[in-house]
């Protein structure tokens, strides 16, 4: 098939992908959009199949059957809580494929007389480098999220220097290859160096910052694919890769903004490695005391409220209490209480993760409110129930300039008439930051395992 006709047919795929993203603007027809995207992908595969003219067709079938089979099995089995690592994994294999294509392309064109065209050479090295970073970085992110590796930042002395040196060495090799040095091993060095850099670069990033990392790696793979389109002179790769690159970049910036931290700070700050000293913590709570309550009292508060807002954090997902929360919400609704959920953008381990977890527990999506929508509602809320969230409801982010999270947009639960915090103990959260909300006179603490507490509450509400 000629360049013109295949690229025209690839246009079907491009349109399908754009429509797929467009349909995602509304949950009512998002699923159809995904199906349109899949059809577009099928079209691209068929066109490419015809283009190869049946060469090595059995190898293509075998490769697709093996890869597709593995992908389908894993995708069907994965739990919704494990979605971030799943996305990281699929992201990694995509980046790996882009890097491999680079290696194969250079191997193909090097024996040709004359040096490769500069634009092709640049595309090959960039796609190799970015693909390798994305591949290895995603695998480390996967290992961290799957808890094969510690979620805490892993740091050592001189880390930044080592990373910077390695990266510069890779860039130097890229420049050499682009400017006409015809050495295949150099590209292997770039890919290997990129992979090592990817590992070193994700290792020091803490588990709570994963929403940023995953979005960024997603953007990297998209970019690697787009650049790969230049080396293969293939429009569908350029456009689709860049759509993903733009999406990943946008999400990365949004996640950074939601944590009030620059993306550089997230990537190089090793946040969570430093903990506030106990003296600072004691100073910020103003010496106030904590009120704790039992499930019966809280059940009464909830059952006689007009409006209850649940504020779920990742602790809820860890405790697997989504379904129990929804059952409690159902009971409250039967009693005429208005129930919604306020979701912070970085609740969970990837952008929007909490929404998926609650949707899985059959929470109707109109009840899921994003931060901008939820915050004005708190002043009309009788009880805000914080389950497994901490930093995202910490008023220090608004009031205390000395706090490490000062400036981070938060859910203003302290504007509600009363706040109930479900928490295992008074230990500060992952980042070790003290939370004055717990000492607020409006707040009552319900100590214990989140799941057990919720089940207890539901039983008590039933008897009322």
């Amino acid at each position: 098939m000629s360049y013109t006709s295949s690229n025209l047919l690839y246009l079907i795929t491009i349109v399908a992908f754009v429509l797929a993203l467009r349909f995602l603007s509304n949950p009512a027809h998002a699923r159809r959009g995904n199906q349109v995207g899949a059809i577009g992908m099928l079209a691209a595969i068929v066109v490419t199949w015809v283009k190869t003219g049946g060469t090595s067709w059995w190898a293509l079938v075998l490769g697709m059957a093996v890869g597709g089979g593995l992908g389908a099995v894993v995708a069907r089995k994965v739990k919704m809580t494990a979605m971030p690592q799943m996305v990281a994994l699929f992201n990694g294999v995509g980046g790996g494929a882009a890097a491999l294509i680079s290696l194969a392309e250079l191997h193909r064109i090097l024996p040709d007389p004359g040096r490769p065209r500069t634009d092709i050479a640049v595309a090959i090295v960039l796609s190799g480098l970015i693909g390798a970073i994305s591949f290895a970085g995603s695998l480390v992110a996967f290992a961290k999220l799957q808890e094969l590796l510690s979620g805490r930042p892993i740091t050592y002395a001189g880390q930044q220097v080592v990373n910077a040196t390695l990266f510069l060495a890779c860039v130097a090799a890229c420049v050499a290859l682009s400017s006409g040095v015809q050495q295949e091993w150099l590209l292997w060095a770039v890919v290997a160096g990129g992979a090592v850099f990817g590992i070193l670069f994700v290792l020091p990033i803490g588990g709570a910052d994963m929403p940023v990392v995953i979005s960024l790696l997603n953007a990297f793979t998209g970019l690697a694919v787009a650049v790969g389109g230049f080396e293969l002179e293939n429009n569908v790769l350029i456009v689709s890769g860049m759509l993903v690159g733009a999406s990943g970049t946008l999400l990365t910036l949004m996640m950074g903004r939601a944590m009030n931290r620059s993306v550089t700070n997230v990537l190089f700050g090793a946040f969570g490695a430093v903990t506030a000293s106990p003296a600072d913590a004691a100073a910020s709570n103003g010496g106030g005391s904590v009120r704790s309550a039992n499930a019966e009292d809280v059940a009464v508060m909830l059952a006689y409220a007009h409006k209850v807002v649940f504020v779920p954090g990742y602790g809820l997902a860890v405790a697997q209490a989504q379904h129990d929360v929804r059952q409690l919400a159902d009971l409250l609704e039967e009693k005429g209480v208005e129930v919604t959920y306020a979701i912070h953008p970085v609740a969970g381990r990837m952008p929007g993760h909490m929404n998926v977890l609650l949707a899985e527990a059959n929470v109707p999506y109109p009840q899921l409110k994003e931060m901008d929508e939820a915050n004005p509602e708190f002043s009309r809320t009788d009880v805000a129930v914080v389950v497994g969230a901490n930093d995202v409801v910490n008023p220090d982010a608004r009031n205390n300039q000395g706090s490490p999270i000062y400036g981070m947009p938060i859910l203003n639960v302290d504007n509600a008439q009363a706040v109930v915090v479900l928490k295992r103990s008074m230990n500060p959260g992952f980042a070790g930051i003290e939370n004055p909300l717990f000492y607020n006179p409006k707040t009552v603490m319900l100590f214990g395992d989140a799941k057990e507490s919720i089940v207890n509450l539901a039983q008590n509400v039933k008897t009322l």
Partner: protein
Amino acid sequence: MNHNTLLMFEVTILVLAIFLGIEVISKVPSLLHTPLMSGTNAIHGVVIVGAMLVLGSGHKGAFTWIIGFVAVVLASANVVGGFVVTDRMLEMFKKREPPKRGE
């Protein structure tokens, strides 16, 4: 087509794709950001096109063959896994389950 003309067109569509991407994606509510990520994940699986071209390009070196084959395996896992996982997620987003509370 002349190489420079082709390159110019490619750069043009690349830049337009950036703006198109930002335009379309900024309309996706944060409610659907996880499906957006896994959906775009599936979309970059289009790298399978490149992998197929490498494997099926007709030059028979064992090296190219192995690299191409592994790339096809990885890319197909990316495509199928990405779309299936996204579909599973989007299926869960419902307004209200009819049997329980149909008022």
